[in-house]
């Protein structure tokens, strides 16, 4: 019972924080709400019996990827004119279309959940790190390999962009940092 309450609390935090991510005009504040949302999601994972996934969610998403985002946004030097432009873009007319579509999706999800068996917290089964590992290197090996190909492509792309050109013509400081 307690776990169920905790789940709903962290779930609602995730939803509210995600709303703030979309509506916030300051990019860094929006990113902070995104971090909160990811942390709340990790809490949900934990309560649903996946502690390993919860820990990875924090380490990889909230800890590494979001830090990179904040790092990038920090360099943009956001000022008042950016915030004003953001608020021009955030007129209510733009919300109508997406809201209608999302409402349809929501209705669909509610209908699907209605027609299924009811879920109860006692059915939660613990998936530990060992189970995740043997699943990843067993039945889902192909997916892991494909994902690693994707990452390799990203790595090669990054290397290409950061590669030192043979003739240093324009900017000698480029390769540092």
């Amino acid at each position, binding site marked *: 019972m307690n776990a169920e309450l905790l789940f709903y609390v962290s779930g609602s935090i995730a939803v509210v924080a995600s709303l703030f991510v979309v509506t916030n005009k*300051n990019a*860094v*504040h929006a990113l*902070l709400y995104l*971090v909160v949302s990811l942390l709340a999601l990790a809490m949900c994972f934990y309560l649903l019996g996946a*502690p*390993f996934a*919860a*820990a*990875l969610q*924090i*380490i990889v998403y*909230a*800890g*590494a990827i979001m*830090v*990179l985002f*904040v*790092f990038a946004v*920090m*360099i943009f030097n956001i000022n008042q004119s950016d915030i004003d432009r953001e608020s021009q873009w955030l007129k209510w007319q733009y919300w109508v279309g997406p809201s209608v579509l999302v409402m349809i999706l929501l209705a669909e999800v509610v209908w699907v959940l209605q027609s299924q068996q009811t879920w109860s917290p006692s059915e939660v089964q613990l998936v*530990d*790190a060992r189970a995740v590992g043997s699943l990843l290197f067993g039945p889902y090996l192909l997916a892991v390999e494909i994902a690693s190909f994707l990452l390799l492509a990203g790595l090669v792309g990054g290397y290409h962009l950061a590669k030192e050109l043979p003739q240093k013509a324009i900017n000698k400081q480029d390769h*540092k*940092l």
Partner: protein
Amino acid sequence: MPELDLILLIAAMVAILVPTAAMLVWFERRLLGFFQQRYGPNRVGYFGILQSLADLIKILFKHDWIPPFADRPVFVLAPLIGAMAILMSFAVIPMAPGLVVSDSNIGLLFFLAMTSMAVYSVVLAGWASNNKYAVLGGMRAAAQTISYEVFMGVSLLGVVILSGSFKLTDIVLAQEGMWYVIPQFLGFVIFIIAGVAESHRLPFDLPEAETELAAGFHTEYSGIKFALFFLGEYLGMMLISMMITTLFLGGWLGPWLPPFVWFVLKTMGLICFFILLRASLPRPRFDQLLEFGWKWMLPLALLNLVGTAVVQLWGDF
């Protein structure tokens, strides 16, 4: 009533850890003085033992200034995030048999998660100050922490392979025969280096290098918020020392003395080692720091991981 016990334990831990971190400031200054053949602070109380208290009183009476050009909410939040994240990681460290707040199945991962959360403190402080030195410090902190976090995690996997668990109590008990510092010496060294970098201690204190960046990310901070950053740094040093003790030096294990005493002795030894590092090593240049991380430490950590896995699997067959 087990819940009341737990709350009391948490309260006791906070009540012990925070003053200990404050005392460490005095201890470090005395020890640095000793290494540099001078006295250090020795005026307040016996041997200057009340120096931290005097500092605290002074810092409480300072003007707690928030610059008008700063991003107010983030500026206030940043020092809190760091101290909280580091205080939370103490919850999973077993200091003696049974003396642990949460003996979690994912204790080691929880530690890594909380240290990765602690970065936000420095990065956001730098950004919210809206000052070019602070921003530079924050950017350095972000780049440094992301680079060093990667092989910090990888260097610990050797320990996980040998003990077969993320649970810190299991890891300590698995070292009954031999401390992991012997079979995992490479991992031990890499983890120490990553730990120094994660807690922004000298020689890896590039985010606050005072010779080039004024005071780096905390240039605009004063009063109690500055004290929180300071507290976070010393708590971080204690945390890393305790983690090294737990993972590589057998935690509370040891003959004759009670377990808790062994744990404290090993931790204190490591803290002295960290202070000696500060007194003896120069600070590298920032690009050297990143190059060292990616080109040397990461491949070595991966090598350590693969080697440990091969040896372990060889034994299984």
